[in-house]
């Protein structure tokens, strides 16, 4: 291949620009196994990436070529299953939904999400998230919710649907809980994920279970712990906007909103 020396003015301004050609980055992976008493250390790998390479693909490259013992959870690789949340260069994000090229850095550091117990390396324990989610009774509550041959569908207008649609897009990835400042200090807080799901059902006009749900969140570790710092909505990959859901729900409970 003929190499044409580029004039200085044509040189890229920094070496972080990743073009269609293969570039090599340093991937720093946090390794730890706390239940075995193994503190976190960083393992560094040189990984070839292209414009479209995702952080998850870079981690899988390491597993295939250098060290298959790196623990990472993933499934769908398309921002749908909510498995691959981690801290990428200091911020919670989905590894499958973050391209290396958009990080504008030749060094990519991946760590397990904060505010979740670490299982090993990048995999964290979702027990609390799932149990808080379940406490919100994430289903339509009404006497006649069993569909029988005689029953008809529950009619909703597009406007009725819009009141809760975006909140139903939650994939339980936990990024919001790991960004939340209250979650950082209060181990019993329900968290933005759960509270947003409570509103998803409260705002659904087919649902008749408001009182049951409101009893659970009207708690000193419930909705009143939210300070509207907005960090949850900042990191949510699905546009759920948990901060909005929580404020609307609180407005409803305070009587400012219907």
């Amino acid at each position, binding site marked *: 291949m003929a190499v044409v020396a580029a004039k200085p003015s044509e040189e890229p301004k920094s070496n972080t620009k990743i073009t269609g050609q293969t570039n090599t980055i340093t991937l720093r992976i946090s390794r730890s196994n*706390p*239940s075995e008493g193994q503190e976190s250390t960083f393992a560094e790998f040189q990984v070839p990436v292209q414009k479209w390479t995702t952080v998850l693909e870079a981690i899988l490259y390491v597993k295939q070529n250098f060290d298959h013992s790196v623990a990472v959870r993933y499934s769908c690789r398309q921002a749908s299953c909510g498995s691959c949340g981690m801290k990428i260069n*200091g*911020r919670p994000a989905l590894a499958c939904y973050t391209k290396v090229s958009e990080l504008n850095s030749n060094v990519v550091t991946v760590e*397990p*999400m*904060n*505010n*979740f*117990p*670490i299982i090993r390396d990048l995999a*964290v*324990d979702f*027990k609390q998230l799932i149990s808080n989610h379940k406490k919100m009774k994430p289903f339509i509550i009404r006497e006649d919710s069993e569909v029988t041959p005689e029953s008809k569908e529950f009619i909703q207008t597009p406007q009725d649907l*819009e*009141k*809760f*649609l*975006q*909140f139903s*897009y939650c994939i339980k990835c936990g990024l919001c809980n790991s*960004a939340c*400042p*209250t*979650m*950082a*200090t209060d*181990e019993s807080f329900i968290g933005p994920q759960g509270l947003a799901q409570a509103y998803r059902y409260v*705002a659904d006009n087919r649902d008749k279970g408001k009182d049951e749900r409101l009893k659970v969140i009207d708690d000193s570790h419930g909705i009143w712990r*939210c*300070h*509207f*710092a*907005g*960090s949850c*909505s*900042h*990191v*949510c*990959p*699905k*546009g*759920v*906007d948990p*901060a*909005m*859901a929580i*404020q*609307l*729900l*609180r*407005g*409803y409970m*305070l009587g*400012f*909103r219907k």
Partner: protein
Amino acid sequence: MAERLSNREGIKGMANPTRYGIERFAYWVQRLTGLGLLAYLIGHIYETSTIVNGKIAWNQMLELTQTPQGHILLTLVIGMCVFHTANGIRVMLGHGGIGVGKPGQPEYPYKAASLNYKQRLCIWVSIALAALAMMYGASVLFGD
């Protein structure tokens, strides 16, 4: 699992205002100014309570506070008070579900409607009002 293994960020993470945009910064400043005002209130009660010890004690306290350091402190208190009040009104309205946007169909790139320009504008206005009040306060305190 033991909380020790929880990887919880703790106070350091809670109090880090450098990530997650200006809304998180405002949250942090609201806490800091709230605590600052509380400290000032306690100090202020102590200061003014010297009057029960008579005129001489009161005048001695005034001499202590009416120094350049005292003026700088008061200027800071003015700023804290104005920011805390203005941003506090934004936060209270937000907590009531006012000005936090309307639910709708999320569209890529999924900008959160609750982090809207009205919220950001209110934060900047709170900062600007605090700065103006501090400038006016300092000019009164230091000017003769």
